[in-house]
Structure formats: C-alpha cells, structure tokens
C-alpha cells in the first residue's frame, strides 16, 4: 500500500506522448516512459524528474517488435513498479494511396497501432487490477469516424482501438479499471506534420491543436472515466455535422479535403531530405 503508483506511457519521447508525460508530471504522477531506442527518452526523463519532482523511469523499446512487449513488462516487474495507469500512445500515422504504401509499412503500422496496444493491455491487466482503481487510455483518432481516402489502414487501426476500448471498458467496470479512448483530430505533433498542415486547407489549419493543449483534456477525461474523449470545439462540431449531414454531401466534402493532402508517411519523414523537398514543394506551390 505504501508503494508509489506509476503511469506507463508508450511513444513518450515526442509529440502527444511527450505532452501527456509532462501533463501527468504536473499532476504529480510518477512515470514510466517507453520510446524508440535513442538518448531522447532519457533526456526527457531527467528533465521531468528535475523540474516536476516526480519519479521517472525511461525505457528504450521498439514496440513494433513483439518480443519487446514482454521485455518492457518483465523489466517493470523486476523493478517492482506498481503501474495503475496505462497510456497506449505509440502509433504510426500515414496519409497515402493504398497502392503507394510498401507492405512493410502497413505491417509495422498494424503491429504498432493494434498489436502493441492489445498485448500490452493484456500483459498489464493483472497489475492494473491489483493496483486499482486503475485507468487505461488508448489513443484513437477522429479519422475512425470518417472513412477518409488515403487513411485506409491508419483509419482502420484506429477503428480497432475505438471498438476495443469501448468494449473493454464495459467488461472491466467490475474490476475497478476504467478504459477511455481519445479521438484527437489533427495535431502539431512533429515538424513534418506541422509542415503538412501548413500546406492543407482552411479546416485542417483551423482544427489543428497543439499536443500540450490536448493532453490536459485527455487526462481530465481519463480521470473522470469518460469512455470517449473528443478534444477541441471544432472537432466536436465536425463530429456533430457528421451525424446530421446526408451522406452524399459528406462524400464530396471529404473527397475535396483529401485531394489537397499530399501523401506522407511518418517513416519517410524521419529523413530530413524529404522534409526538405516538402518545404521546397510548398514554397513553389
């Protein structure tokens, strides 16, 4: 009972994951941060530890590889850390025609977005039950409500997350575990996405939210046991319009919106050269 409780966040070194980590730290929650191998996660862990006076543990793990789920789980067991909050944030985005994407990319996307969330939740279920009241936050997407072209696989993985979370929430009510799913719209998560948003249309530019503004909404929703969290007024209006508008209008609107979006994948964007040609394209466009 005297044990400190920890919040586990995956994909924590940048974007929304980093914003969630900082938001939790401001609420004095101890953290276990999991991110891709590299020094960044330890820099972030040190920074949060010093500036927010909470305990932070950084773990390097590529969650698109199955063996790493067990590795993370075992490591946390060995350290004797009591996790009472699990935030499945790690994910891989992408906007492209289905024919454009390499199979390896889709595999990685499905593994990370679906498998990692499902299996990590399963692994930590007993821990969460013992440390209850516990919370699980899964990161879905607004795109799971709209069947957007160029977001087939991504949108489908997020629909999985949506169904999985809602169903699990009803199932786990008795076990004192609350499951929430957050469905954010466009976020300024990494530089390349920022760039992409700058080149797209009015709606995309105005509905885009900063991760540090979404994070408090996410944690508030999670702690108040909301099943589905929709951040942002414009996103809520958009969702309402979706239920009210006749489908033929929606089809044309969505078609027009997606045509303006260039095809981009998160992995490509790691290469700064591509980012660079993007800048050039947007300047000449």
């Amino acid at each position, binding site marked *: 009972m005297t044990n400190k409780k920890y919040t586990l966040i995956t994909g924590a070194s940048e974007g929304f994951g980093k914003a969630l980590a*900082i938001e939790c730290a401001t609420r004095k929650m101890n953290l276990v941060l999991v991110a891709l191998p590299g020094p960044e996660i330890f*820099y972030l862990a*040190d920074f949060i530890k010093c500036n927010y006076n909470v305990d932070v543990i950084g773990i390097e793990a590529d969650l698109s590889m199955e063996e790493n789920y067990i590795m993370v789980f075992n490591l946390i067991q060995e350290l004797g850390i009591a996790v009472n909050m699990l935030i499945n944030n790690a994910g891989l985005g992408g906007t492209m025609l289905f024919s454009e994407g390499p199979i390896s990319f889709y595999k990685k996307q499905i593994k990370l977005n679906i498998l990692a969330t499902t299996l990590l939740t399963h692994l930590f279920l007993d821990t969460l039950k013992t440390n209850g009241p516990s919370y699980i936050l899964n990161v879905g997407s607004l795109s799971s409500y709209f069947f957007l072209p160029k977001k087939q696989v991504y949108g489908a993985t997020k629909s999985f997350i949506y169904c999985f979370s809602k169903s699990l929430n009803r199932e786990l009510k008795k076990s004192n575990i609350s499951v929430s799913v957050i469905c954010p719209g466009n976020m300024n998560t990494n*530089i390349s996405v*920022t760039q992409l948003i700058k080149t797209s249309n009015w709606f995309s530019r105005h509905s885009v939210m900063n991760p*540090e503004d979404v994070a408090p909404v996410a944690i508030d929703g999670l702690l108040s046991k909301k099943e589905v969290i929709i951040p942002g007024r414009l996103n809520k209006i958009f969702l309402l319009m979706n239920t009210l508008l006749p489908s033929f209008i929606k089809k044309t609107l969505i078609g027009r919106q997606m045509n303006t979006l260039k095809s981009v994948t998160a992995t490509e964007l790691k290469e*700064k*050269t591509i980012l*660079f040609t993007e800048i*050039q394209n947007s300047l000449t466009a």
Partner: protein
Amino acid sequence: MKILVTGATGYVGHELALALANQGNQVHIIVRNLISKNIPRHENIIVYRGDITDRSSIRNAMQGCAQVYHTAAVVKIFSKDPSVFYNVNARGTHNVLAEALDLGIKKFVYTSTCAVLGSSIQFPKKETDPRTESFDNDYEFTKYLGENLVKEYAHKGLFTVIVSLSKVFGPGIETHQISVNNIINKFIHGKITFIPKPISIVSNYCFINDIVTGHMLAMQYGLGGEKYILGGENISYDTFFRELRSLSRSRARLVPIPKVVIKTLAVIDWIKFLVTKKEPFVTVKGIRHIYINKEFDNRKAIQQLHYQPTPFKEALKQTIHFLKPEHHDQ
C-alpha cells in the same frame, strides 16, 4: 587562416568578422548589398557579393577556407511573406552545409538560438532538455529546422558545432527594431519604458563580446556534433531595470503592463497590418514569449569551451557607455 563568415552584416556576424580579422585571419564574407553600411571594414576582410540562397555564390566565397561560421538568418517575429524564413534559415543553411561538406571544410559553427529550447520550468534549460511547447512562429521553427540540418550533416561527416545564443546585447551595429540594446537605449535616454507584468519574469541575457569569444571557443574546443548554450545571467525584468537605473542614473518611468493590455495592442496592430500591410510590432502569439521564464544553463560551455561570461553589471556598464558616451565623460 582563411575563414568564411555568413551574416557579417548582422549584429553578431559583424562583430565576429572584425574579431577574427583582428587576430590576423583572412575573413571572407558574403553580402547581398555591396554598399550596405553594415559591412565590417578591415584590411583582412574580403567582401564577396552573394546570397546564401544562391549556392554558386557561397561556393565562390567559401573556396580555400578552412572554417565556416554560419551566422546568417532572418531574425524577426513576423514577416508578411513567411517563405523568407524557410528560404534563408532552412534552405540557405542547407546550401551552406552542402557546400561546406563538398569543399572539405574542417570545422563548421552554426549560430542558433536558445529560443529553439523553449521556456524553462523550474530550472534553467540545458542543451539536451526537451521543448515543452509547440512551435508557434516561423523564426523559431526554421532555426530548429536549421539545427536538424546541421545534425544531419554531422552524420554525413562534417565537423559541426552548434552555439545557442540567448538575448544578446552590447556595443555593435543596430539591426533589429526590437533588441535589448534598443530597450536599454530608450531607457537611459529618459524615455518611458513598458515592461511586462509580473516583473519577476526571468530571461537570460548575454554580452556581445562573450558571444564573439564563445563562437571562437566553440570552433577551437567544441566537440563535433555538440551544441553549446552561450548565455549570460538569468535575471528578472525587475533586476534588469534596477541595475540599469543604478548604473545609468536614468529617471525614465517604468510602466509594468499586464498581458491583457499588450494583447489588445497586438490585436489593434494586427488590424493595422491588415489595412496598411505594415508589419506588426507585436503579435498575439509573440506575446506569450515575453510572459514566460526563459532561463538557460551555460555550464556546459563554461566547462567544455572555457567560456567565461562577463558579469551582467560589467557588461551593462560597457553597453551604457557605448550607447551614451557623454554619460561617463561628464
């Protein structure tokens, strides 16, 4: 030694080029306008006409150099045409890096800004600390892109060092509308000065002489691929003006302005911009930056580069003397 300095008509580049020339180096500089009054004049400085957005002009000036200081950048809070930030700060930096790698430059120092690191929370920010807020202006974002390009070229084999400057002040040429020098100048000449309220907000200020030496130390001792904060003391607006008042004996009135007031002014300024196309003096987004703590930790530079920042009081004294020479002659 032959050394290229880009941005020599800017505040930092100008002083740096002169200091390097005074040490007996042959300094190549690239300028867009050959009759600019901001060109540093010295017998060891060779002026090349060019622009960092034009690769052939960079190559022409860089030929035969062993070292490059890339200080050129568009430094403003807002531009009518945001593509200028991308063209110069990102694409221009890419051009300079690509030519440096191609011409076998031995060492490359990139001048960046602490603004990329963002605001501080409880302790002064270190080089490796993450940024906690999203980018909201093209200047900071393109300087961040510039740093990423430098890191990319470090992987490609170029010996690079990044120096991050905080708010620079001290003797030198005037190149911006809103600079620390400008604020000091107005205050010591008795003009009414508006400061953000609460006056306890802390920022980091660094002296131009330290920045010039810091660049040279980074070139000499900096480790490849590393970044160093060249900062001075972290002090509040309150302390800043108290020191300034006691040193200059200025009787200028200080008026603390709450955020709402400046926000209103920014909105008015924005409407003015929409009507007259005159670039705004303050922007609503820009305001956030003067109402948050921006403390930086210069210990890495002190330990690894033997950087020795001048005490704030001493730096301020020299600056006042430069801006109001008669004050000390009386």
